[in-house]
């Protein structure tokens, strides 16, 4: 008697539990770059708190995966560190809108035992270290820039990303701009062939940070957020205008502001002009179809993305160590998004 009651009501309860919440909120889906994930995670959570009838499910499967899902139309929007190129746009078949939603800055972290002062490196020296032309920390070119710092006679262990990543893209884009030798020998991309003899690859920003922290004499490039949260030493670079800068949200935003005309075909802001521009910065992009299939969902997607690139959405960036878009870029992103049919 009791068993049959439990069976009947149990089944009902399970069905109710599955169907009732689904009817309450619409779940939008996005996929793509791992770089944006902490920012999206925080921002979409705040958005759902303010608009309980919409949730956003973002899967950080990598830019390549995001673009593939976007072309297959299984997600509402995609996120990528590099905008879709002509081949991918052709595969998508329909007009695609691409606009920046956040900024990334790459810091040069290092681990030199006994050196507590902030290291100063020129852009050319960074390129030469990664090319394998400067092999030791007490090389005259580094010593010359850091008078008063006791640099040891220690080999430089060059750490890079082993997985394909937008961070690598920004960094190699920067190296291609400052060193013609890098540009011809290696090039810019999400995965490259690293020429330095002591190059070691680590997986993810956290891998590079961990490798640099545990290897004496290591140098590596990491997203600013990781350097800040792990309290790592980061080098000051001399930018194009000749000023010595540390990597920070302000210097990265200054670099972004130098390109208000940013577009999917002209988006590189590495080695930007301007006195306070951090030389290794880049945008991260969101992609939507100009004419999405489902008009009801399109309206919801538009609202979320417009909120994300507006002042309110961008204000969530600072708390997770991301850089908010400068206001001129926010306007140009919004102008692009407005072309979406909603």
């Amino acid at each position, binding site marked *: 008697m009791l068993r049959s009651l439990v069976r009947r009501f149990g089944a009902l309860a399970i069905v109710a539990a599955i169907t009732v919440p689904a009817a309450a909120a619409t779940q939008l889906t996005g996929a793509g770059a791992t770089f944006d994930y902490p920012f999206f995670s925080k921002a979409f959570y705040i958005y759902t708190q303010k608009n309980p009838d919409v949730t956003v499910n973002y899967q950080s499967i*990598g830019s*390549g995966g995001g673009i593939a899902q976007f072309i297959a139309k299984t997600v509402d929007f995609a996120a990528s560190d590099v905008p879709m*190129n002509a081949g991918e746009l052709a595969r998508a078949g329909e007009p695609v809108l691409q606009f920046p939603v956040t900024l990334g800055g790459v810091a040069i972290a290092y681990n030199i035992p006994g050196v507590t002062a902030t290291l100063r490196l020129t852009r050319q020296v960074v390129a030469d270290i990664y090319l394998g032309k400067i092999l030791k920390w007490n090389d005259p070119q580094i010593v010359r820039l850091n008078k008063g710092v006791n640099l040891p006679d220690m080999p430089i262990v060059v750490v890079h990303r082993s997985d*394909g990543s937008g961070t690598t893209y920004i960094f190699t884009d920067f190296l291609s701009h400052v060193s013609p030798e890098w540009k011809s020998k290696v090039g810019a991309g999400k995965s*490259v062939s690293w020429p330095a003899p002591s190059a*070691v690859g*680590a997986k993810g920003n956290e891998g590079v940070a961990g490798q640099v922290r*545990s290897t004496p004499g290591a140098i590596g490039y990491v997203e600013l957020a990781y350097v800040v949260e792990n309290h790592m030493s980061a080098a000051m670079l001399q930018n194009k205008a000749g000023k010595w800068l540390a990597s920070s949200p302000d210097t990265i935003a200054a670099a972004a502001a130098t390109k208000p005309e940013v577009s999917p075909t002209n988006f590189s802001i590495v080695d930007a002009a301007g006195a306070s521009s951090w030389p290794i910065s880049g945008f991260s992009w969101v992609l939507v179809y100009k004419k999405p299939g489902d008009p009801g969902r399109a309206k919801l997607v538009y609202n979320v993305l417009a909120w994300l690139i507006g002042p309110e959405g961008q204000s969530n960036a600072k708390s997770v160590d991301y850089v908010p878009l400068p206001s001129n870029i926010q306007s140009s992103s919004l102008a692009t998004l407005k072309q979406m049919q909603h």
Partner: protein
Amino acid sequence: MTAEPQFRRLVHFVSPADRGFATVVYAGSILFALLIIALFIMLVLGSWPSIVKFGPSFIWKSEWDPITSKFGALPMIYGTVATSFIAIALAAFVGIMAAVFLADFAPRWFATPLSFLIELLAAVPSVVYGLWGLFVLAPFVRTAIGPALQHVFGWLPIFAGPIYGVGLLTGGIILALMIVPTVTAISRDVIAAIPRDLREASASLGTTKWETATRVVLPAARVGIFGACVLALGRALGETIAVTMVIGNRPEISASLFAPSYTLASVIANEFTEATSSIYISALIELGLILFVVSMVVNALARLMIWSVRGSRA
């Protein structure tokens, strides 16, 4: 005992239930075989553009440049084989000794919890091994094991060169840790299954317990132990995350064990999500095909060795 063709048995089943059951079982086994074949076909189809473009030179070229789309798998094949070889060498030695101890020497009250602990090693997730390797083992190799080996054997090219902490040796050690439970558990069961008569006969001839273990029990169990090692080697060949976190990820062949290296599984795991050009994806799938073939070949060779040993015992 019997050599009659399998299908004749089906006709002998009188009861429909038996026949139905036999059909289901046969269908299941055939399905698995088809699955393996389908997997192989899918790998070949996926890597076809790369096979056409690079041909057999893919296997012996030594470069990996996604920007200029020049791919060659030799460093990865070397890394996979080398780390697995180091792993099985370490794990087989430790595992078989542990199995002999657990089966023949340890008192029951000690053997049971110790077996349990060793099997628990197999339950630790791969990525946890990787994290431990990156933050504990790699610095240990860099500060203790590496310099010690280099001090004594530094004149050998395999122990020369700079010690980064991450590298081929660290990858091999991590893999050894991961496959030791497999070797130990299976070997222990095989050794315990050796009939007591053999041990008693040996003891009656006046051998010590150690001589019994090494000269009577182990040779009798060698087929099963070898099978255990092959199983463990299969796992080592395909292990991805733990290895990728400690191997240094450099597509280069180096004489030194301390140098960073790369394995087939690591490249695929690292680069597949961001590979956007079709030749790049195709090259990665071809790496998967090579890994598949290497695993099959290793397994087949091991089977041949087991059959040849079994045949000579009859």
